């Protein structure tokens, strides 16, 4: 099933409809039509290794996120929404504006007991607590999300999907369930090759298919949230006739994810943890991965947020990634792939502070003390031999929303 032209179709349809129905009712228009956006600028400095540009030289300003979205309510049951994003992030993202989502949302039922609907088009991927709004600084607890689960390298795969979501909010004893079931075709580009093949391969992923389900139980009015996400992705690799070790066989790369999420909120504290096992199966692709065709990527983080008041918040987090959960020190993988062992794991201790002078502005500063280079992007660190095992990141971020 191909969803290739769905977003384009939706956007043209939406804009046509907007221009017709927007004009006829001034009162409704100001309510039914909305525009929102944000601009984020980041600064990153590292003592070794690079994040978002050449941060280890004199620091890097090579990071921005700009988003603009609009939504329109056609009828009480039917909504449409579009967001365009530009993201510059070192060599990983070049700032070219992209259609982030473009969807139609039809809500069948709308009550406390059950609010159920379907969304079609280009959709944000409902993965864990933070993935859907990972690029929106106001919704993040920190400048960088825990990279073990929300690794920036594979972001395009995790970002949005062309397809359909069946969603529902169903009341349950003591609270309610939020449920999302998704089917579609994930984004696949060179960054996905870097993330899963560790290189810009000769061929490319020419087709993709993904199935995902997320269920979150909310109790105590959302004070406690417990969730599970499972997904199954297939990316079909099409060789371009390159030669070993830069080429692979025609076949499917299979990605399975199982994730548990939990959060406890009080007025001043939020404690959040997520645990993920991400099975990566290269069997059909072979090539250099024939040596170890299946690995369980294993990761978790624990995060404590403290809100002093409306203006200030603090963050402490421990984030742990093992690219191969069966080889936590990377010893075996180091021998097999000729990369340093620390390239197969990362342990990141993060300290952060946020300042919100008013509702429109947010400033953050944070420190990362990192052991291992498991999530250091190949694009910004072209020579794996030059990577250092122990490194630190200092980051600043300013965001304005409207």
């Amino acid at each position, binding site marked *: 099933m191909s969803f290739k032209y769905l977003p384009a179709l939706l956007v043209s349809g939406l804009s046509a409809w907007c221009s017709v129905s927007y004009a006829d009712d001034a009162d409704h228009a100001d*309510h039914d039509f909305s525009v929102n956006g944000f601009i984020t600028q980041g600064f990153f400095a590292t003592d070794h290794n690079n994040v978002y540009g050449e941060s280890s030289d004199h620091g890097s300003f090579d990071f921005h996120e700009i988003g603009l979205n609009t939504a329109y309510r056609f009828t009480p049951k039917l909504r449409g*929404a579009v*967001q365009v994003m530009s993201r510059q992030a070192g060599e990983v993202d070049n700032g070219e504006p992209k259609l982030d989502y473009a969807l139609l949302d039809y809500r069948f039922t709308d*009550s*406390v007991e059950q609010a159920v609907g379907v969304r079609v088009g280009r959709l*944000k991927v409902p993965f864990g607590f933070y993935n859907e*709004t990972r690029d929106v600084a106001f*919704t993040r607890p920190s400048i960088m999300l825990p990279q073990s689960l929300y690794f920036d390298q594979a972001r395009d795969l995790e970002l949005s999907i062309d397809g359909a979501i069946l969603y529902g909010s169903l009341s349950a004893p003591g609270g309610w369930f939020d449920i999302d079931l998704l089917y579609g075709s994930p984004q696949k580009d060179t960054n996905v090759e870097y993330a899963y093949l560790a290189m810009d391969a000769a061929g490319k992923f020419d087709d993709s298919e993904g199935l995902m389900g997320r269920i979150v139980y909310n109790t105590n*009015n959302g004070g406690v949230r417990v969730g599970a996400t499972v997904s199954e992705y297939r990316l079909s690799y099409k060789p371009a006739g390159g030669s070993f070790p830069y080429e692979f066989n025609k076949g499917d790369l299979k990605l399975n994810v199982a994730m548990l999420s939990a959060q406890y909120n009080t007025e001043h504290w939020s404690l959040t943890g997520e645990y993920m096992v991400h099975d990566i199966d290269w069997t059909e692709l072979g090539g250099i991965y024939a040596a170890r065709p299946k690995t369980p990527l294993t990761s978790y983080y624990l995060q404590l947020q403290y809100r002093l008041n409306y203006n200030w918040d603090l963050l402490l987090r421990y984030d742990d990634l093992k690219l191969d959960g069966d080889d936590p020190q990377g010893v075996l993988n180091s021998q097999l792939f000729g990369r340093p062992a620390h390239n197969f794991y990362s342990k990141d201790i993060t300290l952060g502070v946020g300042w919100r002078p008013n509702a429109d502005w947010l400033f953050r500063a944070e420190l990362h003390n990192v052991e291992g280079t498991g999530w250091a992007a190949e694009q910004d660190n072209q020579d794996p031999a030059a990577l250092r095992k122990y490194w630190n990141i200092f980051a600043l971020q300013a965001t304005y929303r409207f």
Partner: protein
Amino acid sequence: MGNHLMVWLIRTSLLFAVVLSLSVGNAFAHSVIVSQDVKEQTLNRNFLFAVFSMRVTRWPDGRPIRVFVLPDRNPLHRLFVKQHLQIFPYQLRNKWDRQVFTGAGSEPEQVDTMEEMYRKVSQHKGAIGYIDKSFNLNLEKVRVVDEF
């Protein structure tokens, strides 16, 4: 002199009568108000929670709900959210942001003053908001569906 006093007395008592007839039964509670076209006579806390978190977007008769709120830091907003909805303002804000920036929903319309809240709720169909106990409501324009 006596005339003046009489006029003043009459004026004052008239004013009191008008004020009394316009204000809510219980002058010691803040009110959740809806526009006159809303059919519901009372709204329970579960429904209010779902409405203000923008999880439920239509009235039981199928017409869209139009939600008005004061700014996050407004004392009445904080009181309403914390005491009545039993959630913290930052949690509501997170929910709204998540919906707005994923295309999954919208956020309430923000008003800056009590007068604006009253005017918007009274003038728009399917509207809901909340208002301070000290505010004199004209019950021909809005209806009180809950108190806190």
